[in-house]
């Protein structure tokens, strides 16, 4: 259990700057997710914390101790890799006990710790098997077991679920979260999948282009995205965003008036954002249905308004068919306004 503090972290590869002064405090026992598109620097940040990448500038502290010049092995961290990185010539049990073996722990103690971790992860029947004899999900659990056995101060996950199929990913997501609730170890988790971030995190740091765009609890980011990037990155299906002009307490766009509760200057060009679930059917904006995507519990409609495609999500089934004309009432309370130039929330 430990805190992790990033203080103005910089990093460049050659002349390419990948991190521009990242500062981030992670509390004791917190599940922090770093999320962002590929190339945003999230993995680099994690690898610097792991000691696999040199720190270009700034300091990283684990449990109050600056670790910039410490080797990976002295940082008391454990990492789960996207590719699992299991030792192919060792059995599951040997893989999990390898770090303890390197520390010259007693055999009895190693066996106990491995057995304990195997029990937590339901790996007991596989301890004598080799990684090549396991399925993807089992391998991923072994990789987690290897981390648990060490009882480290911080768990690091580098896109651990990216190589699993969709169904397994959902199951493992729940397992990792349950594991964290059980062990309460400080965790830093990197992913490009905003659903993973939303479902697992205590707090999320949304990263883009080497900066943290917003830091907050999952629903904070969903309800009050600080800027256009976060608004469009968080939430599925993605938020509808289009250009408009603020006049008389509403936004004029796509040939209609869009209600909003936020304020802007009269005549100010803005971006209007509204999530697909925040439409009601009734009197409002006229739209033409283009595509209907029934998913059982909900239905997604792709509609055209003033030449622009928007997504609308409804609970349950929708009677609408392609070509129908419907009337949509955007929910003003849930509409978001962003400055057209800077993208910042208004």
């Amino acid at each position, binding site marked *: 259990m430990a805190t992790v503090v990033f203080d103005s972290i910089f990093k460049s590869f050659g002349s390419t700057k990948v991190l521009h002064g990242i500062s981030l405090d992670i509390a004791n026992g917190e599940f922090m997710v770093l999320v962002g598109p590929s190339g945003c620097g999230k993995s680099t940040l994690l690898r610097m914390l792991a000691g696999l990448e040199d720190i270009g500038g700034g300091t990283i502290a684990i449990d109050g101790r600056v670790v910039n010049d410490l080797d990976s092995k002295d940082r008391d961290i454990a990492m789960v890799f996207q590719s699992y990185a299991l030792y192919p010539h060792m059995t599951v049990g040997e893989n999990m006990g390898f770090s303890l073996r*390197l520390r010259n722990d007693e055999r009895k103690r190693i066996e106990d710790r491995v057995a304990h971790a195997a029990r937590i992860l339901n790996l007991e029947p596989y301890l004598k098997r080799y990684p090549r004899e396991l399925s993807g999900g089992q391998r991923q659990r072994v990789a987690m077991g*290897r981390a648990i056995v060490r009882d480290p101060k911080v768990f690091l996950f580098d896109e651990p679920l990216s190589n699993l199929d969709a169904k397994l990913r959902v199951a493992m997501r729940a397992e990792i979260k349950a594991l964290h609730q059980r062990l309460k170890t400080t965790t830093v988790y990197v992913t490009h999948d905003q659903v993973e971030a939303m479902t697992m995190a205590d707090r999320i740091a949304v990263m883009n282009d080497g900066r943290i765009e917003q830091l907050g609890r999952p629903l904070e980011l969903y309800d009050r995205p600080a800027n256009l990037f976060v608004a469009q990155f968080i939430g599925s299906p993605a938020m509808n965003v289009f250009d408009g002009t603020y006049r008389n307490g509403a936004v004029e766009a796509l040939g209609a008036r869009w209600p909003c509760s936020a304020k802007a200057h009269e005549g100010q060009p803005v971006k209007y954002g509204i999530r697909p679930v925040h439409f009601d059917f009734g009197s409002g904006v006229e739209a033409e249905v283009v595509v209907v995507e029934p998913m059982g519990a909900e239905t997604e409609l792709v509609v055209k308004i003033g030449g622009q495609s928007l997504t609308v999500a409804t609970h349950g089934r929708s009677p609408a068919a392609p070509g129908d004309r419907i009337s949509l009432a955007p929910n003003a309370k849930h509409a978001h306004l962003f400055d057209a130039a800077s993208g910042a929330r208004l």
Partner: protein
Amino acid sequence: MTNRKLLSEAKLWLVAIPVLLWTLIPIYHIFLFSISTKDSAFSGRLWPDHPTLHNFVTVFKQEHFYLHHFWNQIWNSLWIAVAAGAITLAIATCAAFSISRLKAKGGRTVMNAALFTYFIPAAFLAVPMYKAMGTYGLLNNRWSLVLAMVTLAAPYAIWVLKQASDKLPWELDEAARIDGATPLQLFRLVYLPLMVPSLVAIFTYALLLTWNEYLYAFLLLSHENTIPLAVGLGHFLASDDSPWEILMATALIYGLPPAAIYYAFRRYMVGGLTAGAVKS
């Protein structure tokens, strides 16, 4: 089987049969000589009238003028080949590990230098090598041939092992580092076990290269007690009336260890040991 498959199969056989004959006929010829009596060796028959194992008895009992040191010489061959193989392997493994996995500074230069050594044919280096060994006082010492063969085999061995090392997943090193492995532990506990197939292949390469070497052995070693069997066989041709049937029996015996080594290690020659390490 469809016609098309049959046709491609037939084409393969059309190539395979001549290649097989091309390879096997000389070996059969050696075998034929070795079981023939001196008189019938050149009879031109496909099978001798009176096949005999007498030639082998002669060889094993060292009962011919050219064979008085047979056991000694085959021991020399073995000793020199194993030593050269082991030293080449040790040098190449350490070089490949430090260049490929530890990213040692100057690694590229070493690799280029290793490649450069092959611009000069080994035969050109024979005389300088002779001079060098003479300076070190190693002439007529088995170590001279061992060292010479190591210098010839090591560059290629380093290249091959470096390439094989590069293919090991990098995450394994990172995982081991986080698990607390020092570079030496990484080498011993992760790198070596995963490299076994390549290591066996390179050891076999260096061993067979040395086993089959003639020129350097002929130059550097001249005493009957120090020469390997390859040079000993060459002595057979010193007279006009060479005992071909005994030469061929000896040659057949000389050819058996490499065949045995290939057979024993063939399962290591194929990779696949890293399966399951990382998602590919």
